[in-house]
């Protein structure tokens, strides 16, 4: 069963034995033979030498008495030695004296020259040995004998030895073979057995087999024991491993099952989450839609209410009695409050929903302050409060300009509301540690400490019980959120009895972008400005007029010295002049007649703004408009507008197209414009607007965005891509809540964006005058 490899150790052992025995025997035989040969040769030489001596001594007389015959007789005795092939005796002069040869052909050896100090030499050559010996008689060299012998005996004995050695060698090798078979039994077979077991274990992974023990002691026994022990160990390990593996498999199965279960749960869960998310998104979309609809649907009618009630108070369509006047004022006030409330609620909703997007830019604080103060001044004036501002020129913040103004107006509105008549409201801003701190400080009663924390909560109203003050209760909550959206904080410092101070911080504007704000303000100030000279010696009244007119875009020059007024007017050549009556040292009546009689100023329209209620006298003296103080901004601006329009000589027939689907709003806007002398046509939807523009190009379009069928966006896009209408001025007037992208789009493609959430009429008129400076109504 053993393969070639299996018995390799046995073969190796056998070979080892044979090789060792063979080598030893060979060496021994060689040594013996060599020794024997050497001995044999020495014996042979010795025999030859003896023979040479005998022959020499027996040949002395023959040599001395020159008797070769006698010498040859002596030599012939060599016949007895069969190994001697030939021999010769030489005289001292080297001549061959006598010779002998065994066979006829054998050559007689030459007499080699003997060295003087040697009596005998021999040499082996060509299977023969030649021995030369001197013949000395009585101490005298008498001749030389030379014997040549074959080495047949040597050869034959060598052959014999070799034969014996061969026999011995083969016998010994056979013996070694026998011995090695014993070794094999003793050594190789256990090892082969061990190897076989090891191979079986390796191949079959069967660790239960054991190697059989053959000896009681010795290294092999130790080896086999160790191997068996190792096998036992391995078997144990294998079993342990198998158990562990089985256990592991079981656990893996369990885990897999658990995981699959968990996975399906997670999948079910994630599916439900997905559905919830979809529902949420849908709900959120509904909410957005609702907010958008609400803002539009609520504001549109309210704007009509506000607009028409305001128009009515102007009494252009007939005088109102005091009661009517008062009722309309109630309608207007109630409407305004409602609008504020709606705006606030929508704003708060948007903020809470995280849908309020800020359009951050660098805002010049003084500009914003001026605009806000202009807006709020009338409110303060009503309560005879001083509204003061204090800001370093050039200070700017990073903010959404609309929201920044909203915050300021909210805070100032609150201050006005809670500060008693004749109080003072101070608006200030300064830079501190990389931020701009804005403060609104009033001289009101202050806020009790216990209320200071709750004051920013929605619907919380200071002094809830007394109901003296009006408001939504949302203002501060919205303000606070807006400030926080800007990355700032709204705070309050107040002590009852010593006023309150609301303050907030905003980041300072990036220096690089500051010019953008200036550019935008430059855009507002069109080069075709209209200069108005205001003659008023009361500083506060002058400031108010200045503010009203400036906010409408006019270039206002103040004159507080009536004596110099004529020169100034002649020099400046303003488009219009407003003038007080009660002035010193020259009163308004005198001044009016001077203006009208001076050819340089006779053509300049004059608006009288006075507490003296004598319009007839003003008219008789040549005044164009007569306004009784207190001055309403709208009244003032309308009067100035009329004056200016009167002054224009060139008329235009092209109308302004008002596109608005809400009939009241459409009528209100149309009335607003025609009141100021503009020719107006209207369109109730997008399709009508499209066909009107296609039929006849209007001077300008006032466009609502939300229209049935064709939206304002669509119209705007169409007009801008058409070369004929590419430069058509378009003002967008909408109550829609616009995203930042929408706003960007409109600002790029339309000349103006007006949102009905904010007061917009004045801005519209101002911008109209700037965009269409020469457009006049002929009928006006």
């Amino acid at each position, binding site marked *: 069963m053993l393969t070639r490899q299996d018995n390799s150790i046995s073969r190796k052992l056998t070979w080892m034995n044979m090789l060792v025995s063979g080598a030893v025997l060979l060496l021994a035989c060689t040594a013996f033979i060599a020794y024997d040969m050497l001995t044999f040769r020495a014996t042979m030489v010795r025999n030859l030498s003896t023979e040479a001596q005998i022959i020499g001594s*027996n040949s*002395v*007389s*023959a040599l*001395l*008495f*020159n*008797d*070769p015959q*006698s010498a040859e007789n002596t030599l012939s005795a060599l016949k007895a030695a069969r190994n001697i092939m030939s021999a*010769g005796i030489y005289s001292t002069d080297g*001549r*061959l*004296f*006598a*010779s002998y040869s065994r066979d006829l052909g054998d*050559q*007689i*050896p*030459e007499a080699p020259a003997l060295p003087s100090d040697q009596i005998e030499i021999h040499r082996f050559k060509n299977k023969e040995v030649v021995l030369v010996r001197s013949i000395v*008689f*009585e101490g005298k060299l008498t001749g030389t004998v030379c014997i040549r012998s074959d080495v047949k005996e040597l050869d034959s004995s060598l052959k014999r030895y070799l034969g014996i050695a061969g026999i011995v060698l083969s016998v010994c090798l056979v013996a070694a073979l026998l011995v090695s078979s014993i070794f094999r039994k003793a050594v190789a077979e256990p090892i082969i057995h061990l190897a076989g077991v090891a191979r079986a274990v390796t191949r079959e992974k069967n660790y239960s087999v054991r190697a059989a023990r053959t000896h009681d002691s010795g290294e092999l026994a130790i080896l086999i024991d160790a191997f068996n022990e190792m096998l036992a160990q391995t078997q144990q390990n294998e079993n342990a491993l198998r158990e562990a593996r089985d256990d592991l498999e079981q656990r893996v199965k369990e885990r897999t099952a658990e995981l699959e279960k968990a996975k399906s749960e997670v999948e079910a869960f994630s599916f439900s989450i997905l559905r919830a998310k979809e529902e949420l998104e849908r709900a959120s979309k509904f909410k957005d839609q609702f907010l958008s609809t609400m803002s539009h649907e609520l504001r549109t009618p309210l704007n009509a209410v506000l607009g028409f009630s305001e128009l009515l108070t102007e009494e252009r369509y007939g005088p109102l009695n005091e009661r009517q006047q008062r009722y309309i004022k109630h309608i207007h006030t109630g409407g305004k409050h409602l609008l504020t409330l709606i705006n606030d609620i929508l704003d708060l909703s948007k903020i809470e929903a995280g849908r309020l997007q800020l359009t951050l830019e660098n805002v010049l604080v003084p500009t914003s302050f001026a605009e806000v103060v202009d807006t709020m001044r009338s409110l303060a004036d009503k309560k005879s409060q001083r509204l003061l501002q204090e800001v370093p020129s050039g200070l700017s913040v990073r903010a959404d300009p609309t929201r920044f103004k909203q915050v300021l107006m909210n805070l100032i509105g609150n201050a006005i509301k809670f500060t008693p008549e004749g109080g003072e409201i101070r608006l200030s801003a300064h830079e501190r540690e990389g931020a701009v701190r804005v403060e609104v400080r009033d001289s009101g009663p202050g806020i009790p400490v216990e209320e200071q924390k709750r004051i920013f909560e929605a619907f919380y109203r200071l002094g809830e019980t007394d109901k003296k003050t009006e408001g939504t209760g949302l203002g501060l909550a919205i303000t606070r959120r807006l400030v926080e959206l800007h990355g700032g904080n709204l705070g309050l410092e107040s002590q009852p009895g010593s006023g309150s101070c609301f303050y907030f911080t905003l980041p300072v504007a990036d220096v690089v972008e500051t010019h953008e704000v200036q550019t935008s303000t430059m855009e507002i100030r069109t080069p075709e400005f209209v200069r108005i000279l205001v003659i008023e010696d009361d500083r506060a009244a002058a400031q108010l007029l200045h503010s009203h007119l400036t906010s409408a875009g006019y270039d206002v020059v103040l004159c507080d010295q009536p004596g110099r007024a004529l020169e100034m007017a002649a020099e400046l050549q303003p488009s219009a002049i407003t003038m007080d009556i009660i002035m010193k040292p020259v009163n308004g009546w005198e001044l009016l007649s001077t203006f009208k009689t001076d050819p340089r100023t006779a053509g300049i329209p004059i608006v009288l703004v006075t507490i003296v209620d004598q319009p007839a006298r003003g008219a008789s003296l040549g005044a164009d408009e007569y306004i009784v103080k207190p001055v309403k901004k709208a009244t003032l601006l309308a009067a100035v507008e009329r004056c200016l329009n009167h002054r224009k000589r060139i008329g235009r027939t092209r109308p302004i197209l008002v596109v608005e689907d809400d009939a009241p709003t459409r009528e209100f806007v149309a009335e607003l414009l025609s009141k100021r002398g503009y020719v107006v046509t209207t369109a109730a939807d997008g399709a009508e607007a499209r066909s009107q523009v296609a039929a006849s190009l209007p001077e300008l379009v006032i466009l609502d965005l939300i229209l049935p069928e064709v939206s304002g966006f669509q119209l705007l896009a169409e007009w801008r891509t058409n070369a004929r209408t590419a430069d058509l001025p378009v003002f967008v007037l909408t109550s829609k809540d616009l995203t930042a992208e929408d706003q960007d789009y409109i600002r790029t493609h339309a000349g103006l964006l007006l949102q009905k959430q904010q007061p917009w009429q004045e801005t519209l008129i101002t911008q109209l005058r700037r965009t269409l400076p020469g457009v006049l109504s002929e009928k006006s």
Partner: protein
Amino acid sequence: MDTLSLRSAIWRGLLAGFPHGWPPLVGVLVALALFGTTGLLAQLPKPNEYQVKATYLYNFGRFVKWPGAVPAGKGDSFSVCVLGQDPFGSILDSTLAGEALDGKPVVLRRISKSQDAGECRILFISSTEEKHLKEILTAIDESGVLTVSDMPGFTRRGGMIQFILEGDRVRFEINVTSAESARLVLSSELLKVAASVKRNGRSGD
């Protein structure tokens, strides 16, 4: 040894000296060249007859044993004497000069009277003394003197060793009886190479 056997010996020896495998032609050429030289060797002056005889005279002394009681006069030297007219000339002098026999220096003496021969070990009797041979031999009888002569019939007449010529080769005859009567022992070696050995005055051949 004759020239032919010498030549053949040389010839064989020469052939043996050549390495195996030499072309036979070369061997022949060399052999021819050597034959020329052997011709020259043959013409070398052969040793003169008396030169050989002088050498033999000396050599006889090496193969002879004298009786133990040598006469006192013969003690210090080994006398080789020439009686009668000396045929050797100076050759014998040069041959014997410096030599020793029986452990004693060899002295050459030329004598004219047989009475003087008593002290000699070897006595060469010139052929000029043929007439007085009987008296001479009688005079030296039993005195242990080896007598040598080249006169014809010497051994027959009582002499011990007589030179003879075989062709041009010098040989000698021995009368053992004469020698024994003088108590001289001649070596068998000497007898072996003698041309003939006689006993009782008669030729042994």
